[in-house]
């Protein structure tokens, strides 16, 4: 099933919940190997858009094509082989170990009652190595820090070997060190494995540093779709966030960044 063109294509997507319009005529395209960040103010519909891509929410209008096929035509298993997901809120009390959790990412390839294959075990091993979790493999998730736990959930999504990795606020609740580690991991996965990354985030600065395409939502509509350099202009950002912003230049990346006023 080779497919040319966008891996995800959203056409005129609309969604209303309880009479309130959350998404309005949203269209965007994500090409294979892309690193796309979805930014925007609180309540702009970022997470809702992601949940539509995952079929957790059903849109009231428009359509989503995944690898050229309508989203509804996929079985859950088929979809899991194309899209993987790292949720925003990560349950901390799960009784599983790190390697058990990562192994669950292989579900879409399991056959009922068959024992877990050597290939699956090898993929879990490789993923643990890539994400730097080998030492923690047998630790219960409940004993990990927030940053380590986030990496476990990313590792589980990577073990799924889907073309696209969807992430909801992957760094919001992490300290600086873990933020940097998670970002580095995502960039590496994007470059070396060629995974397509779609990340919803609050953090415009990090999004601009790492992604190649940015979509900004404002009140449920696409307010910007383009390269980071074009987004990081005071007049563009002020329009999206309804507020004047201070900008300085990043000392090493030579890109403008926002600082609090």
């Amino acid at each position: 099933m080779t497919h040319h063109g966008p891996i995800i294509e959203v056409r005129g997507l609309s969604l209303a919940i309880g009479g309130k319009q959350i998404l309005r005529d949203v269209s965007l395209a994500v090409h294979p190997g892309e690193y796309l960040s979805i930014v925007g103010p609180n309540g702009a519909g970022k997470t809702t858009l992601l949940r539509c891509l995952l079929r957790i929410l059903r849109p009231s209008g428009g359509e989503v094509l995944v690898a050229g096929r309508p989203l509804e035509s996929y079985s859950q298993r088929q979809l899991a082989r194309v899209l993987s997901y790292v949720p925003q809120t990560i349950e901390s009390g799960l009784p599983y170990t790190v390697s058990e959790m990562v192994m669950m990412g292989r579900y879409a390839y399991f056959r009922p009652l068959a024992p877990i294959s050597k290939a699956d075990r090898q993929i879990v091993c490789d993923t643990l190595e890539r994400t730097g979790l080998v030492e923690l493999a047998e630790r219960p998730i409940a004993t990990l820090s927030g940053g380590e736990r986030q990496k476990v959930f990313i590792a589980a999504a990577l073990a799924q070997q889907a073309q696209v990795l969807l992430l909801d606020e992957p760094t919001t609740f992490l300290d600086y060190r873990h933020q940097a580690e998670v970002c580095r991991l995502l960039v590496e996965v994007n470059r070396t494995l060629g995974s397509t990354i779609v990340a919803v985030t609050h953090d415009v600065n990090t999004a601009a540093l790492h992604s190649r395409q940015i979509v900004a939502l404002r009140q449920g509509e696409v307010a910007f779709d383009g390269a980071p350099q074009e987004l990081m202009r005071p007049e563009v950002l002020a329009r999206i966030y309804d507020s004047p912003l201070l900008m300085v230049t990043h000392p090493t990346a030579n890109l403008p960044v926002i600082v609090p006023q």
Partner: protein
Amino acid sequence: MNRVAVLVLLACVALAVTAAAPFVGIESVPLGAVWSDQEPAAAMVLWKIRLPRVTMALLAGTALAASGTVFQALFRNPLAEPYTLGVSAGAALGAVLTMQLELRLPLPGVSTVSLGAFAGAAAVVAFMYTLARLRRDFSVTAMLLTGVAISFFCSSLILLLQYLNDFTRTLRMLRWTMGGLESVVGMADVLQLLPFAVAGCLVSFYFSHELNLLSTGEELAASRGVEVEHVKILLLAVGALTAGAVVALCGPIAFIGLMAPHICRLLVGADHRRLLLAAILLGGPLLVVCDTIGRTIMAPAELPVGIITALLGGPFFLWLLLSRRPAAG
């Protein structure tokens, strides 16, 4: 592999307990009664009374452990089990209502009280499920609290019926709601429970990967490829039918479905491929031991096994509740 060793050990203990329990009791039954017919009375006690009863306890414990494990995964809460979810209370109300109305359906081999209990269990699960579907924000905690409310409501109605009734019927109702196995004579009841217990165990075992994933959250499970809605309905139904069948035939037996999976999680970890097997191996013998204590501790009188499991399970439940680590940030 020490986890495999634990499973083997559990299996050995299960075998030993099941083999020994029929020989324990006020009426002494010598080992010889198994094969010689020199002691017809002892052989009779062994084959017609003790063995069916121990088998019944084994099956009931197994079924309760399996359905408890399933409910804990689906509700993502280690405090979920048929008893705390109100399934047992619903079944008890169903049974008491059939006694009140003196319903008698002409079905061979199946008692109407059992059917009433079964219907009650099914009604509670259907109610909970509808509630969860209608209100999308219905959290797991809300569902557990609803279970508690349903339990209170059903218990109050049962009390009301008992209050309004004459002495004999009230005693019959009261006795039923204590849960017990002393009415088991011969293999008829065992054969009624057998298909439910076996099906419950097999189906939940078949879905052990799905149970793992569902216990990490429904959205995450869906993103990993689980057909969440279908699997959830099926497992809820299987859990309820298995527990319902036990309550229908033995009365409400509390906390086996809570204790077995929890102890096993400590022994073999949380992966349902091992956990289910361990819980099944532990649940049966646990109930056999409780029932053996029940029929010997106050001999010649018998203590209903439901009272014993509740006495054990109540403190266990409290300990679980109080020792649960608050979610780390």
